[in-house]
């Protein structure tokens, strides 16, 4: 296995862009990443595209607007982990010696409102295929068992919107007050509207290369030390779940993917300087904070209370504003986390810069438990 480096990153802002074509959203992200990498498109040897709603062959449609070079183009759909899956495929291609440069990109223009269920699923017809419902069931359980309160759920959203106000690529880019969040419409008790992320539009792209190329084209190479994609073991609660074992308690997919990523990167959670994780809702941020190993199980609310997850804290979480402030374009969200951590490790994050950041972790989790975790080092 060869070491893999990130040499270029690019984003199309997250938000709503009217009639703008989704293929154009993807193209702008790719062009930004290529410009950042300082490599010609003709030098890229393989491309991996993650998207859920952009339709068949969306990656080919985007890259046709950048130029036809004959390289392999893979189109991947893996729900919220689509972008993370594209990154893993690109990482494996370079690490395995199949190519020296590879592109991972993702983009989305999602329908407004809550994500619809599969028309063939009887449980969706019964009203049991609503994502926030599952987040709420996990949230209630966490509250009943660990003393997490509605106050904590509000505070996660306050923090992430405060961070997002500093991020020009975020959807909302404004702070939201405690009262505004605490009094927003109840969606799925205990989760209120401003404790949930919005599906939206956006794009992200990352150019990977060997160490040799990275050292040639950039003075700020960032090492992609691990990219893990796991599906869940039997005995964990996933989205959706019609039933789950009460006898078998397996480690969650976030737990297994994080452990594998730490092992591959040769570091532990105590070595991280920042984490971007799947805050589809306030409670999920707390639950994944624990599962990634930033604190003991049940202790995430205490970590939050101490301010440890603030930009200036011991282990900043979602300094980009997270999905709560950025919104979640499924194919782009994981790659945008990697873009954020890359900027942070290069020291290019301006007002939201984590001081002397050297190691960061990204995490996405999606339907049927697909989970992607990556670790970046400088």
């Amino acid at each position, binding site marked *: 296995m060869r070491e893999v480096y990130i040499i270029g990153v690019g984003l199309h802002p997250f938000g709503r862009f009217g009639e703008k074509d989704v293929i154009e959203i993807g193209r702008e992200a790719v062009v930004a990443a290529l410009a950042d990498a300082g490599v010609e498109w003709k030098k890229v040897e393989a491309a991996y595209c993650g998207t859920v709603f952009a339709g068949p062959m969306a990656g080919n449609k985007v890259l046709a607007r950048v130029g036809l070079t004959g390289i392999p183009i893979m189109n991947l759909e893996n729900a919220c982990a689509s972008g993370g899956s594209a990154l893993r495929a690109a990482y494996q291609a370079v690490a395995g010696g199949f190519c020296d440069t590879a592109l991972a990109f993702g983009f989305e223009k999602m329908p407004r*409102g*809550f*994500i*619809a*269920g*599969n*028309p063939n*699923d*009887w*449980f*969706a*017809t*019964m*009203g*049991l*295929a*609503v994502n926030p*419902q599952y987040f*709420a*069931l*996990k*949230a*209630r*359980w966490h509250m*009943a068992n660990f003393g997490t309160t509605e106050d904590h759920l509000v505070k996660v959203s306050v923090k992430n919107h405060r961070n997002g106000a500093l991020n020009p690529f975020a959807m909302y880019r404004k702070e939201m007050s405690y009262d505004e969040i605490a009094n927003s*419409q*109840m*969606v*799925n*008790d*205990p*989760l209120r509207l401003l404790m949930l992320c919005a599906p939206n539009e956006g794009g992200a792209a990352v150019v990977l290369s060997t160490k040799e190329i990275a050292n040639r084209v950039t003075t700020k190479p960032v090492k992609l030390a691990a990219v893990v994609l796991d599906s869940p073991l*039997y*005995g964990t609660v996933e989205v*959706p*779940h*019609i*039933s*789950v*074992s*009460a*006898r*078998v308690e397996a480690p969650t997919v976030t737990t297994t993917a994080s452990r594998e990523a730490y092992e591959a990167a040769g570091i532990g959670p105590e070595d991280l300087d920042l984490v971007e994780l799947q805050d589809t809702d306030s409670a999920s941020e707390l639950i994944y904070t624990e599962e990634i190993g930033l604190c003991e199980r049940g202790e995430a609310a205490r970590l939050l209370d101490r301010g440890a997850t603030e930009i200036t804290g011991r282990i900043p979480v979602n300094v980009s504003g997270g999905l709560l402030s950025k919104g979640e374009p499924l194919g782009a969200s994981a790659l945008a986390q990697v873009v954020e951590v890359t900027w942070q490790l290069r020291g290019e994050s301006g007002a939201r810069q984590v001081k002397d950041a050297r190691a960061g972790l990204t995490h996405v989790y999606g339907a049927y438990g697909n989970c992607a975790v990556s670790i970046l080092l400088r």
Partner: protein
Amino acid sequence: MNSNHHLYFITMSQPAKKQVPIKEGLFEVLEDGPHLVGSRCRECGEVTFPANAFCPQCCTETMVNVPLGRRGTLYSFTVQRFKPPPPYKGSEPFAPYGVGMIELPEGLRVTAVLEEDDPTRLQVGMEMELVIASLFEDAEGNELLGYRFRSVKDGPQDESVSR
């Protein structure tokens, strides 16, 4: 003969409302009432719902169908406050409904719609029981049936539906 023919005509043109489960094999009504139909692994003993041929733990085709216990305890809950996107179908206009995970004696937790929509009347650990509920009427005029859980202390509200 004419009258018989007439009767036949009426029966065909105005059939009685037919009750149809939302999916075959999810539940059955036994002497003591309705039960969800799960499956138990002959090797490891794990029970899943809905019934499945393969055991998700052993990864072998070792499952046999079993009726699940009618009562369990509430493990977690929420209230669905907005109308879910398609393909959801329910009563019109939309009314919020509770959703819970109910832990059954066979060692599994089933996610289900609850008869209760007031979160202050729901509590983790409370005893729940299965009911068969009328969900909606389809284009052919069939009454679609599904499963729900209600608090045991609420007791039966409609004997004809629940037993």
